[in-house]
């Protein structure tokens, strides 16, 4: 296997980099024509297209940067090629991860397509070497390779091929690649290290490396399949399998953030109208003195500081009880986004009682961290698990009574289902009266409001606006609506 290994990887690598020198100079400046059909430019544009389809914002300027970067690094090194792309195209850690996935898939497919067109076959794995290895020896070798802190990519790939051929001798594959990968892993007795394990299992290998190995096995299996059938399987969008994120809401997160940024602008510019116009402006000493230069240093004209719209103060109450479970991830992501945009924001979560979580959001950056913290230690004082809106209003008023003023907006995210308890709408009315504006976002369709134990109507009349809201689209609607409402002020 050692004899056949390097030769194979070298051949593969040659195929991966089609006509580097020829295509390269023509690229920068956006003239892909000279690159020709086999050149790199159209390939890169395809890759960019695919990235966009996965939801990454790849602009023309980034692409030009990528081309410029590729002029500077050697293309023959796959690692560098990829790093150069991620330095220029990816703009966040999440982007980098996505790029890595798409890159692998894309170039794997590109290579296979090329190979198919030219009719190149590598032969069935393992046969070329003529070397027979029993399973135990192979197991040892793979485990050693995985436990070593650093190993070359090519070695792992060769081991993966060996494993596949050994597995092939053991019995037939299931035909489903994912299943085969796991069967091979079990046959080899490879276990990932348990992060929480007290005693390290001598048989286990580092998780990262194991995943890498599995990736190789998967790719080799796919390649073998393509060679057998002579056709490329349709490319599936990433989102379905690889992209499985810790929370489903995370991909919406970006969208929520975008909408909330708009919300900030709306609230900021509107709030201005409601504030006292008569308040005397402050003199800007620096500019006044500068102006006085024209009059020989005597300040005749005064310059004032521009009246900046003051940051709106926001109070957000978020229901996290079981009746809104499906919506609460969305609600939390709204809260998370709000915290990014607003400095003066206090957030509360409630079920039966209320608790302030402003501090959690300020401490935790990532959405997962926040969710965990709220679910765990910062948790709500939750005895029965049933929402008690009446009690929540009382407590809320107690908490913030002194801080609420006409500048502040209160936003409630909840379904207004009181579980038959006293809604205490009059307390809510007092909250609404003190606050400048009050909005309610209900995760239920309007049709269901006021049915059963929903008491939306009792609260609705004290709000400046009530909205159905469980998607980003509706959140956008909310933002637009409050712009149309204009600066409402109750007297």
């Amino acid at each position, binding site marked *: 296997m050692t004899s056949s290994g390097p030769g194979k990887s070298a051949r593969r690598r040659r195929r991966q980099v089609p006509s580097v020198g020829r295509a390269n100079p023509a690229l920068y400046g956006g003239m892909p024509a000279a690159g020709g059909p086999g050149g790199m430019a159209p390939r890169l544009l395809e890759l960019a297209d695919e990235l966009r389809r996965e939801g990454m914002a790849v602009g023309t300027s980034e692409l030009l940067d990528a081309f410029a970067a590729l002029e500077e690094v050697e293309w023959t090194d796959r690692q560098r090629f990829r790093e150069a792309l991620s330095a220029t195209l990816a703009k966040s850690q999440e982007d980098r991860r996505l790029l890595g996935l798409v890159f692998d898939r894309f170039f794997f497919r590109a290579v296979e397509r090329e190979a198919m067109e030219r009719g190149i076959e590598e032969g069935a794995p393992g046969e070329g070497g003529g070397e027979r290895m029993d399973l135990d020896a192979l197991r040892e070798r793979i485990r050693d390779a995985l436990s070593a802190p650093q190993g070359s990519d090519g070695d792992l790939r060769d081991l993966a091929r060996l494993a596949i051929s050994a597995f092939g001798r053991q019995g037939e594959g299931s035909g489903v690649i994912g299943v085969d990968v796991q069967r091979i892993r079990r046959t080899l007795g490879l276990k990932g290290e348990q992060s929480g394990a007290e005693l390290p299992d001598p048989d286990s290998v580092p998780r990262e490396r194991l995943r890498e190995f599995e990736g190789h096995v998967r790719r080799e299996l796919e390649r073998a399949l393509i060679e057998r059938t002579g056709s490329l399987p349709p490319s599936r969008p990433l989102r379905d399998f690889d992209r499985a994120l810790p929370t489903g809401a995370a991909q919406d997160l970006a969208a929520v953030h975008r909408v909330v940024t708009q919300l900030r602008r709306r609230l900021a510019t509107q709030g201005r109208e409601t504030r006292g116009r008569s308040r005397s402006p402050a003199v800007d000493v620096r500019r006044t*003195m500068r102006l006085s230069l024209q009059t020989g240093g005597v300040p005749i004209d005064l310059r004032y500081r521009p009246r900046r719209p003051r940051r709106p103060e926001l109070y957000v109450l978020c229901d996290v009880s079981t009746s809104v479970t499906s919506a609460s991830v969305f609600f939390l992501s709204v809260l998370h986004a709000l915290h990014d945009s607003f400095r003066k924001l206090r957030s509360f979560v409630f079920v039966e009682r209320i608790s302030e979580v402003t501090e959690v959001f300020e401490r935790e950056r990532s959405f997962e961290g926040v969710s965990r913290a709220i679910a765990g230690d910062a948790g709500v004082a939750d005895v029965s698990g049933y929402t008690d809106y009446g009690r929540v209003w009382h407590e809320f008023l107690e908490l913030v009574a002194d801080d609420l003023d006409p500048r502040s907006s209160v936003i409630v995210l909840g379904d207004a289902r009181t579980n038959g308890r006293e809604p205490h709408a009059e307390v809510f009315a007092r909250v609404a009266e003190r606050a400048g504006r009050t909005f309610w976002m209900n995760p239920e369709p309007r049709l269901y409001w006021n049915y059963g134990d929903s008491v939306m109507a009792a609260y609705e009349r004290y709000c400046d606006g009530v909205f159905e809201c469980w998607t980003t689209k509706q959140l956008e609607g909310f933002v637009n609506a409050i712009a149309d409402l204009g600066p409402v002020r109750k007297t």
Partner: protein
Amino acid sequence: MEFQSIEETRAGLDGAGYLADESTALVCFLAQRLGKPVLVEGPAGVGKTELAKALSRATGRELVRLQCYEGLDEAKALYEWNYKKQLLRIQVEASDAGWREVRDDIFGEEFLLPRPLLSAISSEQPVVLLIDEIDKTDQEFEAMLLEVLSDFQVSIPELGVVEAKTHPLVLLTSNNSRELTEALKRRCLYLWLDYPGVERELEIVRLHTPQLSEHMARKLVEVVQMVRHLDLKKPPSIAESVDWARALLLLGAEDIDAETLRSTMSIIIKHRTDLDLVAERVGVKLTDDLIGSRQVG
């Protein structure tokens, strides 16, 4: 000094006492060749600021640093007119000079107070410009940076446009406490720095404290890595593990056991609650001598 290749960049950074990994070297090299700013993100204490300092040492360029904070405005970042001096000037000339001359006079470069950004741009020698913790500023400030970062020029209404005489190497760091605007990101190369793996951190520790024995250094790094995996308020940074190594050296400790950890833990852990957690989780393992007994590689 100009880097000619990625290897050279890496060697240069090495020589400046910064062990760069492949992607760091590549991005630094690209930044220099393409003349683009680099946005460096990552958790606190992975050496983002240190990278800028190392670059300045490796290239022999002066480091100009702009520390960002909430409320930083252009008068403190770009330039300001020294109006006190302008006033004095007027009073000196007030009697005989004509208005026109005075006016032309007082808006000259003599009365301009350059702040970090302007001085980085107008410097005769190329510099390394570090804009530290950009995420601490407002979005408005970011917008102001755009002109400087993409065209390397500053518009001063009274003077016209000051263009860069030399091309500064720009690094922006962010702790990711807020999402930066797309416009800013688009103008930058992106570099994500993460905590290093055991081997690399070991190299770093050994580089800074060569006197510490191999065994101790490895054990120390393993403990630090383990501590980072706990759910702490503030995980220990690379600089702190180096500090810890120095402290152990000074104390003449010969082994890291539960006792040593307890007494020196405050060097890497900075929160009361974290201290308890670490003492509980890691201390126990040290007593059982589980760390360090398993040699990697």
